[in-house]
């Protein structure tokens, strides 16, 4: 298998392989330090974007194979590594690790598998980068912080498959910072969309949020969304055409308080005023879906199982609906999300860690992950398979993709946005002027990084 796939050695990237923070003088590392000249193979034109698998130029493959052979030869003792995968991914990862070990029979591996949720990986890694796992999974919104803290090894070369070419463009973009690739895309399903119970809603109902609320109200059921959360409230403001983006220094630019902002805020207040529209957290939704109270919710693939169990054949998913802003229908936007695998630059077995990260994210592994857990692959070939295409949650994500944007936002965004959501969802109890409310939020979001 390994022989077939392409390995592109990004020789040009080697000089850029300096892993450092934002320090200006670090870029001046003398080129002599990089041993590029040592082997002619490294001179392979690297910038070419070769497609994956069979069409691979045979010339490039030996370089990667050489590197791996070198690595095997240079490995004397047992290779001890720690891998962190989420709690739900433990069984699958154990299996993949065994397969990985079998690929290199000459090497003794001592791989420890730890449980660390993708959504909280950053918290554990950043506390002490040096003792974090060698290879770990994380959600793409953490990539800026992780890169800044030097917790991700830049992917300067591929050995068993071409990461950039074989994954969907959005995932590759999400795995990079400033045009450099820092992680290996694992899934492309970490965004959100609408789940609904088809016995309550028709396919027409779910096109508009107002209609959905009306139908749910008539049925005495609820539509749920976690409004008091920066991740979800984004969908309203972005959907109405207001901007939020990340600056180079890690601060944010935000225009939510510009013209039209108050209309969006009012729209959210109006939505939340409906008894049939509830603001609740993901965990609560899980219980409420199971109890039959919630018949539609804005959530992600991780809730698919719960919804499927509760609604059976009526389980359905689609893109987010429209909502009314000042009498006009606006399509709700969303964050597209990816789960990535990163390699810790402080790893003692950097080479093996990179090979393992590649293995855990290659086409077969992504397929296996879909089969085991229904997670949407980021790999083009795996995503193209008919089983994946026919999965309702993944189809809904694909539908939503046109309105989704990658998550590029600085750390100052979350708390102010969450509080804005909380105030709007509870109907602005203090009666603060909406413009002033948004102004304060924007001040918080755009606060300079000191």
């Amino acid at each position, binding site marked *: 298998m390994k022989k077939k796939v392409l390995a592109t050695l990004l020789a040009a990237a080697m000089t850029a392989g300096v892993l450092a923070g934002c320090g200006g003088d670090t870029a001046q590392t003398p080129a002599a330090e990089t041993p590029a000249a040592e082997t002619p193979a490294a001179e392979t034109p690297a910038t070419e974007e070769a497609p994956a698998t069979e069409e691979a130029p045979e010339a490039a493959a030996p370089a990667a194979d050489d590197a791996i052979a070198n690595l095997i030869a240079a490995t004397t003792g047992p290779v001890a590594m720690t891998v*962190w995968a989420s*709690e739900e991914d*433990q*069984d699958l990862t*154990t299996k993949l690790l065994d397969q990985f070990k079998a690929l290199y029979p000459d090497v003794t591996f001592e791989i420890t598998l730890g449980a*660390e949720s993708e959504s909280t990986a950053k918290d554990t890694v950043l506390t*002490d980068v040096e*003792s974090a796992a060698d290879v770990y999974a994380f959600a793409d919104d953490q990539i800026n912080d992780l890169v800044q803290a030097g917790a991700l090894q830049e992917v300067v070369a591929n050995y068993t498959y071409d990461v950039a070419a074989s994954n969907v463009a959005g995932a590759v973009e999400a795995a990079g910072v400033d045009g450099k690739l820092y992680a290996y895309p694992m899934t492309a399903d970490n965004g959100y969309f609408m789940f609904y119970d088809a016995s309550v809603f028709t396919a027409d109902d779910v096109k508009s949020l107002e209609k959905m609320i009306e139908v749910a109200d008539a049925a005495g059921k609820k539509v749920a969304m976690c409004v008091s959360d920066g991740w979800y409230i984004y969908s309203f403001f972005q959907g109405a055409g207001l901007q939020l983006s990340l600056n180079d220094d890690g601060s944010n630019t935000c225009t939510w308080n510009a013209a039209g902002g108050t209309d969006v805020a009012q729209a959210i207040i109006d939505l939340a005023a409906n008894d049939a529209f509830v603001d609740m957290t993901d965990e609560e939704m899980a219980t409420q879906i199971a109890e039959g109270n919630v018949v539609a919710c804005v959530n992600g693939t*991780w809730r698919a199982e719960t919804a499927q169990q509760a609604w059976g054949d009526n389980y359905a998913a689609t893109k987010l609906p429209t909502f009314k802003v000042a009498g006009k229908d606006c399509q709700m936007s969303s964050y597209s999300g990816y789960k990535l695998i990163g390699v810790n630059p402080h790893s003692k077995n950097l080479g093996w860690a990179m090979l393992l990260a590649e293995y855990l994210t290659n086409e077969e592994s992504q397929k296996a992950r879909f089969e085991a857990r229904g997670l949407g692959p980021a790999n083009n070939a795996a995503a193209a398979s008919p089983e994946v295409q026919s999965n309702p949650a993944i189809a809904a994500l694909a539908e939503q993709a046109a309105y989704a944007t990658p998550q590029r936002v600085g750390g100052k965004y979350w708390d102010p946005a969450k509080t804005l959501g909380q105030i709007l969802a509870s109907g602005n109890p203090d009666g603060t002027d909406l413009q002033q409310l948004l102004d304060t939020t924007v001040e918080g979001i755009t606060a300079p990084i000191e």
Partner: protein
Amino acid sequence: MKKTIKSVIRHLVLLFLSVVWLIPILWLFVTSFSGYKGINTSHFFPETWTLDNYAQLFLRPDSIVQYPRWFWNTFVIAAFSCIISTILVLMVSYTMSKTRFPGRKGLMSFSIILNMFPGVLSMIAIYFILKTMGLTNSHLGMIIVYSAGAGLGYLICKGFMDTISTSLSEAAKLEGASQATIFFRIIIPLSKPIIVYTVINAFLAPWADFVFAKLMLNSGVATDWTVAIGLFNMLGKSMINKYFSVFCAGGVIIAIPISALFVIMQKFYVEGITGGSVKG
């Protein structure tokens, strides 16, 4: 007649209060037998009863739930740290209570203030100090975390020793006993209640702490954890709906030995703490 009514009311009030106090504990107990793994929000009692949660804890350890290992880890850490803590506390208490040396009162004020400093504040520094010694992710490191600073918590124990009459030690001194002999032969045997109090407190700390444990045992490997981290982890965002009743079962299991300890030691506990706090 009036007396009987008053007595009935008195006991009804007590009954009401104990129900209030025990309802959450009862919920913990019954939920631990629930066939539904998530949180049941509409029924107090589970709809289906099962022992499966306990079976999962003990018979089917996986990479997230390693209850027997957690229990053992916590027990080892608790046992050693309670021995070390108790020894340290006794040493300091005796010195402060029964010996006189220049600077004693200054030292006491200093250590009382130091003891007011909450550990949460200096966690990160402690972590890196232990990391330079290579003690993170190890039982030894945890034992040090829980017991090294124990000497500061001498106040109640010292108060108790203050109440031990000096006549005995005076008599012993006249017969030529050294301070060490007095410490080992006279004061320690007389301090039984406060020793029990100190032992229980030190033994319980590792069972309840998740903040330090989570920071120190950061390998992500479930077999390294203590009960507290393990259980805390079960209520994480992605876990709670599959592990809530398992969490309850785990809670019940640790509550059993601790309750037993409490009930048996109640007498010593009361004697110890009041003997000590008489002097504060």
